[in-house]
């Protein structure tokens, strides 16, 4: 088994990156202005070749862009997935067991969607 990290592994481990060029287009400001604002807020850019990168999570924290609703939704989704695929005793469900659980309330859920 290879121990090399893929680009997907890297993004998962270190967070997604955005280039300074993308930020300047988004803000409609010069690269100099965006770089100055980042530095003033203590945000490090990563320089590689002729590109500068910023971690998206760091940028969001700096700008106060974290969406609390979104974060709460993600946490709830993780809880629901664990509930969906795991028996109360912690065993992972088989496909057949999961299908049986899903089928139990499927008609009621479809009806609820139809009348909402």
């Amino acid at each position, binding site marked *: *088994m*290879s121990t*090399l990290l*893929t*680009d*997907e592994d890297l993004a*998962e481990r270190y967070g*997604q990156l955005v280039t300074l060029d993308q930020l300047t287009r988004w803000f409609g400001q010069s690269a100099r202005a965006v770089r100055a604002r980042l530095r003033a807020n203590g945000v490090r850019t990563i320089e590689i070749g002729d590109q500068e990168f910023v971690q998206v999570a760091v940028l969001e924290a700096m700008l106060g862009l974290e*969406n609390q*609703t*979104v974060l709460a*939704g*993600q946490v*709830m*989704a993780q*809880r*629901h*997935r664990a*509930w*969906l*695929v795991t028996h109360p005793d912690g065993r*992972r*469900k*088989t*496909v*057949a*067991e*999961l*299908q049986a*659980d*899903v*089928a139990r*309330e*499927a008609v*009621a*859920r*479809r009806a*609820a*969607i*139809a009348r*909402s």
Partner: protein
Amino acid sequence: MSSSRPCLIDTNVFIWIRDRDLDPFKYVGSADLAISDTIATELQGPLPADHPIVLANWALARRMGGQVVDDTDVETGRLAEEIEARYQRHDPPPDDPADALIAAAAIRSGRVLITRNWKDFHYVAGLEFVDARVPAAEDLLVNVGIQRGNLDSPCCRRARRP
């Protein structure tokens, strides 16, 4: 521009659309959207049927056209089990029956799976999917593009060969 390409909206993308108050048709770029019974079950989770989040989920599902793909049948179950068995040499191997059922439902219904969970779907042959983690304001089908599941895709240098 919306196409009529049928799509299956994975739970994580459904939540993404809901919490960002996006127009699902514009965001995906298709006029034919659906969830599956497994996805609906996951969306409700252990919450009571009258919980505000559950009601918000069903309202969005209804706004998306109200289509629910039945993935509780024998054939879909069999395909999901095949998917779990066939990719045991992938590293990491599939270990989530819900992902297997969602992939099987997308394949059997001929729908493109719109998902943020590339990791657990990218190697499933016969599956067409869109990696919704790629930033795009709208029309994922065109702006991000449809990928086909393939064990030889770049990550799969980690696949254990038999």
